[in-house]
């Protein structure tokens, strides 16, 4: 495809004989226009966030005009600051709880699934792999609605009801594809030689997995854990549909329902800033950890950054 396209284009060039390089223009000049565009994009994408963070330190009640620096929306205000409003700080703990539970359940299941599916090739394994990738692309609303029906209608699940358990079960299903996909990709690059060698040396399959494959997979497992954890912090649709009372609503849902209910204010910006800080800490730890685990391999910082963000 590539080489054909190239050959074709070169052929037309040569055929028409118009291949006269314009010497007066440096063909490798820096694309200033593109660079300017990129900067504009970055300003557009990041400055609003900076302003929103600034508003969390607003001394007034307004979301529109800045009235001086203060930390009243964090712990000064006796009614509506994060520190004093039980709903707001409960939301922080709910988010952390959901992230932790989901990561602890989804990552082992996903890793085991990836190992099994990738090494056991058959009709059943490929159909389950298909279902797994389908769970990765199905619109979250549709999946959330299906889960909502499970916990409000389906016998056996109806008794569990909506709430933290429903949220965790939904989030695990939604996120299990991250470790499953990332670990499978890594397994493909590892190849089968290590397994064969360890089998030759007398290891059982279980020993091979535990002593050979899992250590090789540690960076991939770690990256997927980071992705799941931060993905749950950011998640909105599933937790919105599967939470019941305000006590089981994480930060994203509290921000949405409070703002939508017309009670928006700088306290929400403060909550969102806490959320931002949490995500950035997770990302920072993820980056540092991934670099540490892959040192000695040919993975540079940029590659690590893209992997931690799930871009591979």
């Amino acid at each position, binding site marked *: 495809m590539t080489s054909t396209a190239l050959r074709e284009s070169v052929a037309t060039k040569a055929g028409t004989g118009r291949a006269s390089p314009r010497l007066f223009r440096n063909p490798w000049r820096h694309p200033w226009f593109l660079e300017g565009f990129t900067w504009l994009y970055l300003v557009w994408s990041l400055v609003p966030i900076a302003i929103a963070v600034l*508003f969390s330190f607003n001394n007034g009640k307004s979301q529109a005009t800045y009235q001086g620096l203060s930390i009243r929306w964090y712990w000064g205000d006796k009614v509506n600051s994060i520190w004093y409003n039980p709903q707001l700080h409960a939301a922080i703990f709910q988010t952390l709880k959901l992230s932790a539970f989901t990561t602890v359940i989804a990552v082992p299941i996903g890793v085991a699934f990836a190992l099994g599916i990738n090494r056991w090739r058959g009709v059943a394994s490929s159909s389950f792999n298909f279902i797994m990738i389908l769970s990765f692309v199905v619109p979250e609303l549709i999946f959330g609605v299906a889960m909502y029906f499970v916990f409000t209608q389906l016998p056996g699940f109806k008794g569990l009801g909506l709430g933290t358990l429903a949220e965790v079960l939904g989030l695990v299903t939604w996120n299990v594809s991250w470790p499953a996909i990332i670990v499978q990709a890594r397994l493909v690059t590892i190849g089968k030689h290590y397994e064969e060698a360890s089998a030759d040396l007398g290891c059982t*399959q279980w020993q091979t997995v535990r002593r050979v494959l899992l250590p090789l997979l540690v960076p991939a497992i770690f990256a997927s854990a980071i992705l799941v954890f931060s993905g749950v912090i950011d998640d909105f649709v599933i937790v919105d549909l599967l939470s019941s009372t305000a006590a089981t609503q994480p930060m994203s849902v509290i921000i949405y329902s409070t703002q939508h209910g017309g009670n928006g204010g700088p306290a929400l910006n403060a909550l969102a800033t806490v959320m931002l800080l949490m995500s950035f800490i997770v990302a920072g730890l993820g980056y540092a950890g991934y670099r540490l685990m892959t040192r000695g391999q040919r993975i540079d910082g940029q590659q690590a950054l893209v992997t931690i963000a799930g871009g591979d």
Partner: protein
Amino acid sequence: MTTQAPPQPPHTAPEATAEGGRPRKQKPYQPNRLFWVLLAAPGMLWLAILFVVPFYAMLAIGEGKLDRQTESPVAVYNPFAWSSANLTNVWRDLFGSNAFALQDAWRTIWYVAVAALLSLVIAYPAAYFVARFAGRRKAIFLVLLIAPFWISYMMRMLAWIDLLQTDGYVNKVLSFVGLGNTDWLGGHWYTVVLGLVYGYIPYLILVLYAGLDRIDPSLIEAGRDLGLGRVRTFVRVTLPLSRQPILTGMLITVLPMLGDYYTNTLLSGARSTSMIGNLIEGQLSIPSAGQGAILSLLVLLVLLAPMIYYVVATNRSSQAAS
């Protein structure tokens, strides 16, 4: 450090120890298939119970009945007893005389189409620049490019809610240059589309960057060396090579956009901008939940083809890698 306690796959230990006494000298490496099946089993079970069954439950509720006394939908799990009442109702909403659902469906399609194209037009040049020309400053560009990915969607919406208030900074700047005041949050399509673009562009840009970064620069250099101009090198070499990332990126932004109900709730809230997602979400807690189920299934049906395309493309590329 690296070998320390990686998460252990659950439920496999007993089988594995039972297997420990296998003869040592196997001639070719012949792994026991059962071991891999057992390893995959928890995940398969989980997906079967909590991914496949929920969709069947949704179907059962969509094809189910309404309990007139409790005003709640009743699921019917036997396909032979399915009723088409909900389907008929949804059909009437979509194509009947006062077809409000069809309007929402068209609006969704055109909002998403405009937002997706706009995202691509903005994201591609930025990703292209960072992947190809950022040079030594690549790391800093990359951090800035990926940063929104770590900023929650609600935070990003909140940022624009602040800016777009009637007495907010956008209007202040606009009235300073004499463009007057606009009631941005008063239910306008352009605010919703802007919100969609702003909300989903980080996912697109990441996919595009990863794809463009993988293009071998020597191919582009070859094109240039062989006398192609800047534009033609781009059209004949770079663009064909970025077809796959563009398709994947579009899919990864369009699919969630189609199920979006929160962006336009927050940025407009007006009935005149509501999308199919609002319709589905709004029907959940009321007696017509069955219609919400049917509507979800219809959306799923429409999206099945692009979703399967994505799955097949992912499989193909992972097989090519092996």
